[in-house]
């Protein structure tokens, strides 16, 4: 027996309304494949690429960070959903979303803060981002932070490239990095 859709939806909405969730998420369609988007009451917590990800493992990881009350609740992430749709349609160049960076090391938070300032359609190198984060020698550490970016696309790690201008790497796959940069009109 499956739960009637309407009953299921009403429970999920009631859970959001009652403020009982540690994190809510939805899986949304995008030109780069399905994205799992999770948020807490503080802001956006995760964006996970579908490729190679195990949904159960992603939920467990979210539960470890935010608490076990993790529920799929599209209503709770609809603002992020709308802004991402607009971004992928080329109609949005900056996100107006709070982010929840709990659990990250202070250095990562500083780096991601600087990353958020790299504008649409522009790139910066790992070394430049390290300098902006106050530690010019930390290019490799910045690379690690990019690799583990919990909120890709919104925190635009795809805009960070090697010193030679090569794309170097992207946790979601280099083709996705290239696709995002082309969307933003960067000539590669």
């Amino acid at each position: 027996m499956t739960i009637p859709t309407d009953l299921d939806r009403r429970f999920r909405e009631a859970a959001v309304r009652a403020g009982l969730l540690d994190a809510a998420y939805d899986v949304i369609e995008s030109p780069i494949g399905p994205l799992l988007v999770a948020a807490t009451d503080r802001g956006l917590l995760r964006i996970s690429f579908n490729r190679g990800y195990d949904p159960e493992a992603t939920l467990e990881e979210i539960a470890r960070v935010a608490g076990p009350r993790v529920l799929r609740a599209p209503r709770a992430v609809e603002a992020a959903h709308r802004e991402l749709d607009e971004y992928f349609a080329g109609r949005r160049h900056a996100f107006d979303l709070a982010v929840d960076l709990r659990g990250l090391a202070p250095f990562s938070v500083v780096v991601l803060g600087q990353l958020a300032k790299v504008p649409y359609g522009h790139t910066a190198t790992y070394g430049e981002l390290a300098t902006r984060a106050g530690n010019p020698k930390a290019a490799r550490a910045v690379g690690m932070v990019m690799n583990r970016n919990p909120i890709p696309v919104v925190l635009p790690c795809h805009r960070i490239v090697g010193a030679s201008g090569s794309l170097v790497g992207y946790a979601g796959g280099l083709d996705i990095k290239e696709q995002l940069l082309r969307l933003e009109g960067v000539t590669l």
Partner: protein
Amino acid sequence: MPSVCQSLHMAGDDEASWRLTDATSRAFHGMMGAMAAAIPPFESFYATHAAEVLRLLRRRLGRERAEDAFQETFLRALRAYGRLQHGEHLRAWVLTIAGNVAIDIARRSGREVLTDVPPELAHYDSVAVEEQLSDLTDGLPPKERAAVVLRYGFDLTYEEIASALDSSSDAARQAASSGVRRLRRASERSTR
């Protein structure tokens, strides 16, 4: 942090030093805690138990009233979920909540539940101890019975029991102890 084995190995022959140090003890209990069933993300818990909860509520309340009860059951579970200590016996826990929600809703609407013998603890798990305990507690009032079985059969904390029964942990403790007293009196009567 040194592993438990490593610390035990380093402790040497002196018997006293074989006792776990505080830090090692914490590591050990942490490890045991990790081995006990972890609490799954609520989504997984819900996906696993929603259908069975709805079946139980439909049996008890009929199709229409089961819908309100379904939402109430999982909201109660959600309220308590962050306080769970481990992920053991979640099925027994959520079915107990559902059973109590069914009783509350039946009372509120002034109608009887469709089947009596709430909560149906005997069907929760096939573990022998819990079944015996369940048989033993057959004659107890529903809340006392649930408290006794959850406490002594499933080893839940009073706080967890309180969340299942939608009452305070003091009330859960009282229900369990008055259930035990009642059982003791019954067994004294039967042996006399």
